[in-house]
């Protein structure tokens, strides 16, 4: 028996993909929301295609500014995506049960951030088809090798972690095979949480090490411990610090956009408290590192630290902002019980912390490359081309779309159904 | 035995056989030389040595396949009675037309293979890479990699376990195998340009 598919039947079929007990806007409204993001994605893919098919002259990078907007984006989203590994660690290893409320969302955010970063890296390198060379002929002394290995392995871990979330879709979980597989996989999630934490530890660190080992760039170069420069550890701590903040922020944004309560209030509180504590540790380490660098590392290489901040627009303010406005301030806002009692203040703190880590990645990428090393050089100028910006925006759009679809069809916030009953008793 | 195992085994055998028989043709195209040529006739009957035709230039570079001029110094008129020689003299020598020989050993652009260090300095005989090409009676068709356009080998002979590998292969591994055996370790730019 075949019947024509009427629009109302189509809507009904679509509704049946959404779990019972949660409210989602009608399909047309959802499509309206996704349409501009799709448009942005298409535009960005066109920009990326230009770079892939014709060469990177489409960008405004050059032989002095060999890293640009894209590398900054990679570093920033990978730091923000740290919420995935850190939440997993808190839930499965440290047994913080509140994290159950956001773990699925954190996994999707991690997946989005890492896949976006890998995708944009593939546009950024000149010969993406040779990406496998790093695996085949690895130079184990290079920080980038460590990054490549860990990120691909971790992306695999994230995909595996995403599987149970995806298989819990209302239609998919009716397939007994999927449901049983999901159930058993979920029971062993602690293995992947540990693997994720282990891999993240190394690649977040290696991304910092990436700059710390640049002896040719005294602004970035740091002494370290063993094979790892101090930036290795700073990156790990800062990523762990902002991961929970970013989860809190995205959860709140999703709550506002969907118009539903998704997690209990104390989840925000826990996320903020953890984030704030680690952020303060980070600020202390960062300050100590800066002092050592200013007084020992840089002068030993013939560079006065003062000179690094004489290039406009990278004045001393940028260092002060990083440590003060985007470090100490959010750290205090998130740690102080009184301050974070207000949801607005808590979210401000979280936003400042996230902005702070992005600023740090910006400084490490862009300021490092802008500063001259040879005494007669002038500071380099760089402004991204529309192709670079387009590819950047495509990654953002990709992230929003994956998250939106996941939110609609999967259970990102297990408490949502409970909260819809008005209960907050757990 | 389980029927499934049998089916699997048969399928596996079929796949292996197909790969063995069909894949070389997929990867390599066979191209015939413009003229039949017998090395044997020159070396055995004519008593010539390799370097009589394939010599070095003054700057140390290897001259490779002889020019028409070199050939014509003996073959201004037909020396023997074969059909291919008659064709060579009439269609090439008399008309002054260079035969477009296909070179089995043309190297990729980024590889630098000098004959002098191998032949003169290390004293390797030609046969170590080119096999018994010098004693062959006919020219094998050139097997061209359909993607890269390079020859499959430099006319080596079967070697390796079961005789499946050819000496004088054109891959970097084939160079490396010999160099590693001679305990010569290199940097990339030694052989790449």
């Amino acid at each position: 028996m075949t019947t024509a598919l009427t629009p109302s039947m189509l809507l009904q079929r679509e509704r049946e993909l959404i779990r019972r007990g949660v409210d989602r806007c009608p399909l047309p409204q959802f499509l309206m929301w996704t349409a501009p993001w799709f448009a942005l994605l298409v535009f960005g893919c066109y920009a990326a295609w230009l770079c892939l098919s014709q060469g990177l002259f489409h960008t405004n990078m050059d032989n002095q500014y060999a890293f640009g907007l894209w590398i900054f984006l990679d570093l920033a989203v990978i730091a923000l995506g740290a919420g995935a590994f850190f939440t997993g660690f808190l839930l499965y290893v440290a047994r913080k049960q509140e994290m159950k409320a956001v773990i699925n969302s954190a996994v999707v955010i991690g997946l989005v951030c890492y896949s976006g970063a890998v995708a944009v890296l593939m546009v950024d390198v000149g010969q993406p088809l040779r990406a496998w060379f790093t695996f085949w002929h690895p130079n184990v002394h290079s920080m980038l090798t460590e990054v490549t290995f860990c990120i691909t392995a971790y992306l695999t871990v994230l995909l595996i972690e995403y599987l149970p979330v995806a298989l819990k879709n209302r239609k998919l979980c009716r397939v007994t095979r999927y449901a049983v597989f999901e159930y058993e996989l979920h029971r062993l999630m602690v293995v992947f949480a540990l693997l994720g934490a282990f891999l993240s530890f190394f690649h977040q660190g290696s991304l910092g090490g990436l700059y710390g080992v640049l002896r040719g760039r005294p602004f970035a170069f740091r002494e370290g411990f063993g094979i790892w420069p101090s930036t290795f550890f700073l990156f790990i701590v800062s990523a762990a610090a902002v991961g929970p903040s970013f989860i809190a922020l995205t959860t709140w944004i999703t709550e506002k956009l969907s118009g539903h309560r998704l997690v209990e209030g104390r989840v925000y509180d826990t996320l903020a408290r953890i984030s704030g504590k680690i952020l303060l540790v980070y600020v202390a380490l960062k300050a100590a590192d800066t002092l050592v660098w200013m007084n020992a590392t840089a002068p030993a290489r013939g560079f006065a630290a003062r000179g690094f901040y004489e290039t406009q627009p990278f004045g001393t303010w940028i260092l002060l902002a990083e440590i003060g406005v985007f470090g100490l301030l959010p750290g205090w806002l998130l740690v102080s019980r009184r301050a974070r009692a207000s949801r607005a203040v808590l979210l401000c703190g979280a936003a400042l912390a996230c902005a702070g880590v992005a600023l740090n990645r910006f400084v490490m990428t862009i300021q490092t490359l802008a500063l001259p090393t040879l005494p007669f050089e002038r500071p380099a100028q760089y402004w991204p081309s529309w192709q670079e910006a387009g590819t950047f925006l495509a990654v953002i759009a990709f992230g929003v779309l994956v998250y939106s679809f996941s939110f609609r069809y999967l259970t990102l916030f297990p408490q949502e159904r409970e909260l819809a009953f008005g209960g907050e008793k757990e | 035995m389980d029927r499934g195992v049998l089916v699997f085994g048969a399928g596996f055998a079929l796949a292996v056989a197909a790969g063995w028989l069909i894949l070389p043709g997929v990867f390599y195209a066979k191209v015939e030389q413009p003229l039949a040529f017998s090395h044997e006739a020159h070396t055995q009957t004519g008593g010539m040595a390799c370097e009589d035709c394939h010599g070095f230039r003054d700057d140390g570079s290897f001259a490779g396949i002889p020019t028409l001029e070199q050939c014509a110094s003996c073959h201004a008129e037909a020396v023997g009675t074969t059909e291919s020689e008659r064709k060579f003299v009439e269609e090439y020598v008399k008309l002054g037309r260079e035969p477009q020989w296909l070179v089995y050993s043309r190297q990729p652009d980024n590889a630098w293979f000098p004959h002098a260090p191998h032949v003169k300095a290390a004293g390797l005989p030609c046969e170590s890479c080119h096999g018994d090409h010098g004693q062959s009676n006919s020219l094998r068709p050139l097997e061209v990699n359909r993607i890269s356009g390079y020859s499959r080998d430099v006319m080596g002979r079967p070697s390796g376990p079961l005789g499946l590998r050819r000496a004088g292969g054109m891959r970097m591994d084939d160079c490396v195998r010999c160099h590693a055996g001679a305990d010569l370790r290199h940097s990339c730019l030694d052989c790449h340009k």
Partner: protein
Amino acid sequence: MFPWVYGFEWTAGRIVFLGIFFSVLLVMFLTVAFVFLKSAVHFRTGRAYFIQWKSLFHELPRASRACRHALTGHLPGRVCEGAFECRECSKHGELLEQGREAAIGAGAEEIMGMTVPLDRYYHRGHCWVKPLKKGLVAVGLDELGRRLVGRPDAVETPPPGTWLVANSTAFWVKRNGTAVRVLAPVDGEVIAAGGPSDDWILKVRPPAPLDTRHLLRGDEVRAWYRREVERLELIAGRADGAPALADGGELCADLGEAFPERWDAVCGEMLLDT
């Protein structure tokens, strides 16, 4: 990467680095392989359907997961962790030994305007089980279930011979272009399916002797019914324009007709479908 790749050397750095990398890959592979294996074992031992239900069970709101002993007030506030599989529950076993098992009675009870016969067992998914002769049982929707479903467009029953597993799918009711799954109250082989005029829907031959430890009976049913009406009010009253029940009012006879838009959501949630 591998010893046979050109340029590979057995240096300490390489051994440590690649050793860790391959270990990570191995752990990932082994874990996933183990999960596949474990799943296969569940299918072989017949636990797959129960596990499917168990995994879905934890998605249900707390209000839908109350322990039967919480309903009767013996264990206040207790939430079931065992997917309503009281046969495997140690707590339930303890209480049974203390003689807390309610007895199956006779007659019927009027609860909130609904007739609930007490001569049978009830499953949390609103199916009753009534022992018949020759070791057969009849399975049907209780009155609340019938009012929720109303007059279904179709009831999709499994063909005779199908083996039902308790808490897995028993049959589907179709309405308004969508379908709600009804949970099987007992294990057993389907013998026959009833027509629209029958008050039962399936006749099942469960393994003898009939195990009813996981089913509600007697006093429990009363408490449970009151809780279920409360739950319905919560679910139905959640969204604006939903069928709110006036206190003391009676549930309409056909929810699917009264509120076609919300039928799928309300009926599905009440019947513990996901």
